[in-house]
């Protein structure tokens, strides 16, 4: 036993060395990502904050009505958002929403094509699966450290950690949807002369759309659950308020900022849930 512990395999060292090597040789790459994503998310925050709060609330309520065609949801949204503004967390909430939306957009842009590729290539799916399992099971704090090394402090490392955590959902559900297309529908497409691109656009994606939408909704929720952790590496928003409250044992502030997160979560969930699956129903 003594022998065993005294001959420690330097696993952690290796990883650290690996991270160092990667950073040394491609810091320009991470810099570019950092600058690009930083620009997008800060631009989004600036635009949302430039709009008067009341106008933004009206726009969100209007969007909810346009998507669901009923008045109950807007009637829930308006007082809930007014409450957040009243508590003094408007700016933080906008920052949080911007973080969640940007991370979801990144997840979908990368995740949906990966899911489609996995559904078409069994070998790719076989290689991807353990990676996705790892992304979902490894404690988030662990990869917070290397993302900090690569991207510094601020909103971008928070965003990257969020993406790592939330991306498996859209990949898995896209894979599930596309690989679940009945053989007969694929054959019908081929029999009428569909090219691979047409097959994807006119058969596979429409069939998989409900699953993909579920993946996106899940992705939004997972991103939101990361806001407090993202705040630890310097991402602004409601998460930062929670961290501050924790550090100063401020019950009132902790409760209020927590309530604001819950409100955002409920509203995003309600807005994203498909009201009527009718057209795609089967």
């Amino acid at each position, binding site marked *: 036993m003594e022998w065993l512990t005294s001959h420690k395999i330097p696993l952690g060292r290796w990883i650290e060395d690996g991270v160092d090597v990667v950073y040394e040789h491609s810091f320009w790459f991470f810099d570019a990502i950092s600058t690009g994503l930083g620009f997008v998310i800060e631009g989004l925050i600036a635009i949302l904050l430039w709009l008067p709060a009341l106008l933004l609330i009206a726009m969100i309520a209007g969007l909810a009505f346009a998507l669901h065609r009923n008045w109950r949801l807007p009637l829930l949204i308006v007082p809930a958002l007014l409450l957040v503004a009243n508590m003094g967390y408007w700016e933080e909430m906008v920052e949080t929403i911007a973080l969640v939306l940007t991370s979801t957009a990144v997840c979908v842009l990368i995740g949906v094509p990966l899911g489609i590729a996995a559904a078409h290539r069994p070998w790719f799916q076989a290689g991807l699966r353990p990676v996705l399992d790892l992304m979902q099971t490894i404690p988030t704090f662990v990869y917070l450290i290397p993302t900090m090394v690569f991207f510094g402090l601020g909103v971008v490392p928070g965003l990257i950690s969020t993406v790592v955590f939330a991306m498996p959902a859209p990949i898995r559900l896209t894979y599930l949807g596309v690989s679940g297309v009945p053989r*007969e*529908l694929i054959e019908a497409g081929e*029999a009428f002369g569909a090219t691979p691109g047409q097959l994807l656009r006119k058969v596979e994606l429409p069939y998989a759309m409900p699953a993909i939408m579920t993946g996106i909704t899940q992705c939004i929720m997972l991103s939101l659950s990361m806001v407090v952790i993202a705040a630890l590496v310097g991402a602004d928003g409601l998460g930062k308020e929670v961290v501050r409250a924790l550090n100063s044992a401020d019950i009132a502030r902790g409760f209020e900022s927590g309530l604001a997160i819950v409100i955002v979560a409920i509203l995003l969930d309600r807005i994203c849930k498909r009201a009527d699956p009718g057209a795609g129903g089967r």
Partner: protein
Amino acid sequence: MAVLEFKSVDLIFGRAWQEALCLVDEGAGREAVLEKTGAVVGVHDANLAIEEGEICVLMGLSGSGKSSLLRCINGLNPITRGELLIDDGGHRIDIASCDAATLRRLRTDRIAMVFQQFALMPWRTVAENVGFGLELKGVSKVERTARVAEKLDLVGLSQWRDKYAHELSGGMQQRVGLARAFATDGDILLMDEPFSALDPLIRQHLQDELMELQQRLKKTIVFVSHDLDEAMKIGSHIAIMESGRIVQYGRPEEIALNPANDYVARFVAHMNPMNVLRGGSLMTPLAALAETGGALRLGAGGRVALRLSADRRPERLTLAGETVTLRHWDGSGEGGAAAWRDSVVAASADITMGEAILIRHMSGNPVLLVEDGQMIGVVGDEEIYRGLLRQTGKSEGGRRDANRMGDNRDG
């Protein structure tokens, strides 16, 4: 010239297809090939020529390779070895070796397919489903709308155009499938057990509808079925398949009368002979009839007496001693039993067994078969019984075999 011609087509599923081909060439069976190479023999050495405008039915038990062979025609199953020639405006294209662009053109312009489980897109309306092939082909929206409307009209679904597939009954869904296949105006129609998923009444109705449409559209149809009655009803030719091989090919009546082997015979034993057997194969020919006193004596107690001229034309006909005139069969039995009672009827050799029984039942007398005015034979009780017995098997042994076949077919 044949529109479609299969020349020694082999279809093997699996990676070890080369070894598998060697083995089947040496005469190994499917099980042996599967055990040795892990490859599945879908079809072996299929030779078939399908003429323009005919309905060729591929028929066999499940797993006999009929659907696999059908899918070779539009390349859903790539042919392992052999040629599949399709007539394309004078010259012939080999589907087994043509390039992707040609195959795509054949699929969008020439060959359409109807599926067993309909294969309609649940997120598309009826009209959008029918327009699917045209959309893939790149037909403009205006023209598409017009052609979709025309085909929906053809199958009688115009007022359902904006419904979704799941809002329709099974029979209607398959009519959408038919309209979708008609929409591209291809001249070759592949039908993979299109009516098997429907209940019997709807199935018969759609069979009739298909035959009626075929009268007008005159497509070349390759139809897969596991039901010999269906095959006999709609097929102008039938290819019977067993374990990936075509064991018999011919017109329905040929197959019914001369099954090539036990497998086919067992199918035939289960068939309903009414619409398949023809008067010509049921009849006792004129040469086998004995004359008594210068006239033929037919029917119960010889109550019909018929005297023929030297060139075998009916000359003098008496029924129970009274002279009557010969009536000719009108094809439908207009007026019912009362109108035909106590008459002697002449019909062509082409009438079905069902018609012969109907005439015999309504008139009370045997049916005279006449061709170009000349008497060729007669169908009476004796001939009808003989025809029925031939179907159900001549011996008890044959009967038992037939039952076993029925069990297999369900499994």
